[in-house]
């Protein structure tokens, strides 16, 4: 569904993502974990088209989308829920959701179904996005991405800055999406949550993917070691595995 080949992304002199390759099959849920500054958000933004890679290719459903602008990638079936939500603050919840349908892709997701999936938004439909709580904002951001009827959804830190209750609400709504067979790439700081929803986990450190395995074949400790880059210092079997 989505394939990344040898991707390098730079911020000026800094190489934020180095030689990253992986692929996602239809219906797979990949959790991407890693410390702050490991390159997760940059990788997602590069896949979505907000940041041009300096090397490598991005394939969506077999088509090379590396040179397409972001809006054409949405039309091709890719949607990003950006870090920090990035809602249009002066516009209402409903307007934000309708904007998600700008690419005009046909599919199951309509305004009515979004409100069904995120009941907390029903009462807030006419409210300005800037007046929403964090949880409501996140639900709107996810709903806005779903309105484009994507084949692949990139979720960047959906629980960042939310109260625990709001995180539970957002994930409760997400579970229906996860169960629907969508292909998802998820960046999540909370390892327990990431492991509970994902079918596969990848760990990034200093711009590289240092571990990429199915959830069933990986332990929490292995992920933690990769997360902190211990494999480099510690050596041994784990280093070979990562």
């Amino acid at each position: 569904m989505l394939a990344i080949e040898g991707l390098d992304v730079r911020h000026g002199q800094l190489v934020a993502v180095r030689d990253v390759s992986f692929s996602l099959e239809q219906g797979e849920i990949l959790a991407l974990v890693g410390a702050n500054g490991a390159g997760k958000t940059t990788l997602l933004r590069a896949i979505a088209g907000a940041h041009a890679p300096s090397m490598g290719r991005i394939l969506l459903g077999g088509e090379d989308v590396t040179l397409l602008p972001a809006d054409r990638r949405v039309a091709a079936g890719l949607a990003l829920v950006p870090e920090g939500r990035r809602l249009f603050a002066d516009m209402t919840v409903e307007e934000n959701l309708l904007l998600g349908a700008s690419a005009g892709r046909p599919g199951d997701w309509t305004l009515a179904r979004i409100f069904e999936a995120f009941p907390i938004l029903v009462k807030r439909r006419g409210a300005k996005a800037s007046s929403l709580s964090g949880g409501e904002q996140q639900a709107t951001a996810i709903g806005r991405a779903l309105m484009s009827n994507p084949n692949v959804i990139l979720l960047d830190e959906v629980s960042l800055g939310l109260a625990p209750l709001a995180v539970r609400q957002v994930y409760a709504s997400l579970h229906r999406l996860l169960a629907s067979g969508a292909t998802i790439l998820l960046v999540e700081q909370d390892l327990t949550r990431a492991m509970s929803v994902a079918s596969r986990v990848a760990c990034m450190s200093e711009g590289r993917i240092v571990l990429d395995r199915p959830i069933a074949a990986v332990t929490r400790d292995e992920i933690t070691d990769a997360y902190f880059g211990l494999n480099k210092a510690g050596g041994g079997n784990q280093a070979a595995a990562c």
Partner: protein
Amino acid sequence: MLNQLIQGILLGGYYALIAIGLSFMFSVMRVINLAHGSLLIVAAYALWFLADTYGVNPFLGLLIVLPLMAGIGWALQRFLLERSARGGSLLPILTTFGLAIVVDNLMFQRFGADTRSLAPFIGDLSWSSFELPGGLFVGKLSVLIFLTAILLVGGLQSLLKFTPLGRAIRATAQDPDTARLVGIDAARASAAAAAIALVTIGIAGAFLGMRGVFDAYAGAPQLLFAFEAAVIGGTGSLWGTLIGGIFLALAQSFGAMVHPQGFLIGGHLAFLAALFYRHFVARQLVADWLRSRARRPA
């Protein structure tokens, strides 16, 4: 007194009409278009040319000139403003300033120094009037201009609020990067916004030519009035622009009552007063209002 009030309000409609394009471009594209006045004159000359050479009624001429203006707007955004915006926020202002000089002088070269008017081509509309009870007379053209301004503001607001294109234009104005990420072709939305702005300039240019005379360098004073109306009304608010135009015209009328040469001074004083008011007083009022809103339970 009542007469002055009514005439002032109608004149305000005209100021609002010539300011709408400027206000629209600033609010949705964050561009201060200093070529605004010159483009008004371009539309007026185009209509005059059609009327003078081919005998086309200026109202019918709009059918030709408005699509032309839309095309100019689209090209302006695609080839000038979009490129200059990459060089920082100051560059588009300088670009439009340069454009104004080029356009003014091209028109001077083509049409010379004679003043022109569209009034001879619209029958008795430019001088006939309605009589109101109480022996007051209002010009038919002034009433038409006022109604056009209201219709145009209402139409643009509805377009921005209720159509997918309007939402795309607003989203692009707020945050072009995120607009692209939700699937909006930001360059197309901006070009459409510029085309719409130039159509309103085309309509305003037609009425400018009908209610008076113009020459190649008549754009700058028009830009000044449009700018004052837009700023008094609160830049970025189209209904505010209508109010701003009326406020400016009333201030000018009262200035003229006080002193024969007080017309312009009155307008400029109103402009400065509005500026100071907004800077020192309104800021405090808005802060208070936001605080009281924040306290109210959601």
